[in-house]
Structure formats: structure tokens, C-alpha cells
């Protein structure tokens, strides 16, 4: 199935297209000038990202970050378009007992290190990542320092 390629999709177009293409999987939570906020299902994050990259020409991943909400984890993608400066904020929620999500490093090579960083700081495992190893912290670390359960000295 080939989709139409939009080089400079407007914010309305993006939210409409995302809703139509992935019904029930993507929920557009809000739009602003040049900003689209959406929630995505983690099971099909790779297809959504591939669609956004190929058909909406979001060539650049600004950041991939993790967020610990104690009862669940979040992986937040910020994707940007180089033709009109639109950014999509894509949030995928992960239950705390199953920290797995599909890697998007094969779509955007720039996401490679972001995913490694998220893995080492939050313990979220990116399936299909080419080299999922610790990057900033020493290899011998056995804990994930940015989780809320990891307390700093004097914070207890």
C-alpha cells in the first residue's frame, strides 16, 4: 500500500491524516501553531514513525526521551519537518511491568543514541536496536539512574 507523499503538510492535514491512517492507534491530543501533540499506541509505533517519515517527510528526529510516571513509563518522540518547521510530539505509554518498545533507529539514524541513552537511564528496552549498550554511564552499572525509584543522596 503506497501513500501519498506530503512535503509540507499543515498542522490540520497532519492531525487528519494521522487519525485516518491509524484509527484507534493514534490520538491527536492537541494542536498549536506548528505543533501537533499526539498519543500513539506502543505496539505500532514503528509503522506510525515510518509513515510520518516517509509520507509526511518528517526527516529529522529531534529527540527521543523517556519519562518515568511511576505507574507507567513514557517514551516521547519529537519529530520535525525541515520544510515548514512543524513538530510532532508523539507520546507512547509503556506499562511498568513490560518495558519494551520497537526501536525506530532504522528509520532515523539520528535516533540511535537517543534510544541508547533512554535505555541506560530508564531501562526501557528498544527491540531491534542495532547496539543497545550503555552510553553515558559505565558498563558495570546495574541500576537505571533517572528512574524516580532511584533517589539521590539527601532526597530520601
Amino acid at each position, binding site marked *: 500500500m503506497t501513500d501519498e507523499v506530503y512535503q509540507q503538510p499543515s498542522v490540520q492535514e497532519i492531525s487528519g491524516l494521522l487519525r485516518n491512517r491509524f484509527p484507534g492507534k493514534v490520538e491527536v491530543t492537541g494542536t498549536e501553531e*506548528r505543533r501537533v501533540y499526539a498519543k500513539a499506541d506502543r505496539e505500532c509505533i514503528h509503522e506510525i514513525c515510518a509513515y510520518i517519515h516517509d509520507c509526511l517527510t518528517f*526527516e*529529522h*528526529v*529531534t*529527540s527521543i*526521551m523517556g*519519562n*518515568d510516571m511511576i505507574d507507567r513509563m513514557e517514551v*516521547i518522540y*519529537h519529530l*520535525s519537518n*525541515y520544510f*515548514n*518547521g512543524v*513538530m510532532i*510530539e508523539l507520546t507512547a505509554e509503556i506499562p511498568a511491568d513490560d518495558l519494551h518498545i520497537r526501536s525506530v533507529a532504522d528509520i*532515523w*539514524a*539520528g*535516533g*540511535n*543514541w*537517543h534510544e541508547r*541513552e533512554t535505555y541506560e537511564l530508564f531501562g526501557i528496552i528498544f527491540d531491534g536496536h542495532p547496539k543497545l549498550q550503555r*552510553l*553515558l*554511564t*559505565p558498563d558495570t552499572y546495574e541500576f537505571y*539512574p*533517572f528512574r524516580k525509584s532511584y533517589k*539521590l543522596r539527601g*532526597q530520601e
Partner: protein
Amino acid sequence: MMSRDVIDIKAEASAINTDKMWVIMGPQHPFSHGLWTLKAQLDGEIVTDAEPIIGYLHRGWEKECENRTYPKIIPMADRLCYAASMTYTHLYCMTVEKALGIDIPDKAKYMRIMADEICRIQSHLMWLAAVGTDLGNLTVFLWAMREREFFMDINVRLCGARMTTNFPRIGGVRNDIDEEFMMYTSRCVERFEKAVWDIISLIDDSSIFVSRMKGTGYLTRETCVNLGITGPAMRGNGVDFDIRRDDPYDNYDKVDFEVPVLNDGDSYSRYMVRIEELFQSCKIIKQTLQKIKAIGKNAPYRLKVPSKVPAGRAFARLEDPRGESMMYLVSDGTDKPYRLKVRSPIFVNVSASKPLVQGSRIADVPAIMAMIDMCLGETDR
């Protein structure tokens, strides 16, 4: 012409089978401006594989911020990058303002733009100095540092510190500026626009400098974009994108400037983009000074903001001297952030060092990596 040169270099790799050798450059190495390591696999003089290693400076910046009240993070944001302290502080304040949902006064916006551009000029001059030493010439280093000193002086007059400026505040800027400062700054900028030609003629008119940079570190537009390289390095590869123009923050849409874009995709075009950005920054500074003068002396420059940020999420991005930087703030309604994420441009740019240096000579590695303009404080955070 250009592409043929590149093909020549890449085709030279190995007609004879020799043992490959891993050379570990860093963390204490003259070419690594800061603490990072480049493991390079050499076949004779040609780099066949490379792997960057970072993390020597990991301070847990983001975790640390979760322990501090909002104003106390501003001096910390200064220390993300020693050369671009102003932009990071600006970015942090912008993010918090977005979470608060307030719009700061016009004068503060222009002052922030001006401070940003001063920061950009001094950061680029530092980069220029580093290019000089990486290519083996100390004169460029010292001349660029001399020019940088004038902008350091502007910083001192602006906010009392040379590098860790601590100037923007949530809701505005730290202090007002006076007539004397504006006069001094415009004079400095005008002087600089003439003086920088000395350095340019030392580099661009010297065939050694040009031939060292031309044709090295070549990337196509698609690879460059996919690798996530941002900033001047990206604009040298033909990507016509600048957050200041295409996604304007503060008052960048009200000043007139040009975004230099070159299509060659080698180190020399990255170099040229940065040099042109110096001139454009001078233009922006001059325009903002006029606008600040027009706004008037008694206009507000700092809003009083609540100490607690309402629960919610906000992010802002801005054009750092080195690329696109972004901060993402998750707030839970207290006076401390729940999570603060920094997207640093160098973190992604350095991850692209393997495709950048692959196939070039070991002598070109410093020149290619100099065009990334490493700064490890923001990379490791």
C-alpha cells in the same frame, strides 16, 4: 568537480591488504576538544571504521534539576556548555515561560536575541580558533581569540560575567541595559565586521587551508538529515532550515537576516556557513540595538512570575550556535520540575562521526570533527 575529489579520496582505500590498526584518540588528545574518545580503525592512513565514546563528563544534569527550584536551574543551565551558556539559559527560561503560559515583554525578547547573537559570535570565534589549531596554525587561534575578547567584554558589561552569563530570567532578563552599553556594543560589532576579514584572508586565501577542508567529511543531504546532524554542519550540506527563521521564537521573525545554505556538503562549506553566520549575527545585533532604543528606556524588561509552575508539559527549541537544542519540561505543580530533558545538538552530531570520518585520512579527522564544534558539557550533561 567536488564529487570527483571525494571519489578519489574514498577510492584510495586499500589496494594492498594490510593489518588494520585501532587507534584510540582521546580522552586526552589534542584533537578532542573536551573529554571524548574516537576509536578509529586505520588501514595505513585511511580510516576504515570509527566509534565515538562519550560519557566522561556525565553529571546527571537532568536528575539534578529535579531537586532544585526553578530559578536555581538557571545558573546550572549556564554550565551546560561553556561557550554557549547564553542560549541554554535562554532556552530553559523559554521552556518554563511556555509552561507558565506567559508572554514576556518585547524589550526582554530583543535583549535576549541580542545576547544570543553575542553568544553565537563568541562561540563561532572559539570554533574558528579551534579550526586553526586543528589544522596546525596557531595564528588563527590567537587572532580569533583576540576578537572573541571584545565580545567577552560586551558580556561583562551586559551582565557582569564573561562566560557563565546567567543573564536571562524566567519572565525576562536579569538587568536593563544603558546607553553606554549600546554605544559600546555597536562600536564593537562594527569593528569586528572589519577585523574578521583578516582571519578570513588568512584561511580562505591560503590554498593549504582550503585544500585541507575541501572535499573532506563529505555527506549527502539525505545521509546528513537522517543522521540527525543539525546546525551549521547541516546547512553546509544543503538543508535549508534554521529554527530562527522557520520556527521563530522570541522576536526573530521581526528582524531581518539571511540563512546561509551551501550544497557542497564538505568541511569547507560547513566552514563557510559558520563564517557567514558571524556576519548575519552582527546584523541582528545592530537591528536589535535599534529596536531596543525605539522601545524606550522605561519599558518593562522582567515580569514577576509565580514560583510554582502549573502541572503540564511544555517544550521549546532554539537554534544553538552548534545546532538545534530543545528542552522538555514535565511539571507536577510544585516549585521543582518533575522531569527536565535537554536535547543537545552535539550529542547527535557526534554520533554521526563514523560516517563523517570513514574513508578519509587520519590527518583529516581533526579537521572534520572541528566542523562539528565539540562541546562536551552539553553532550554528556
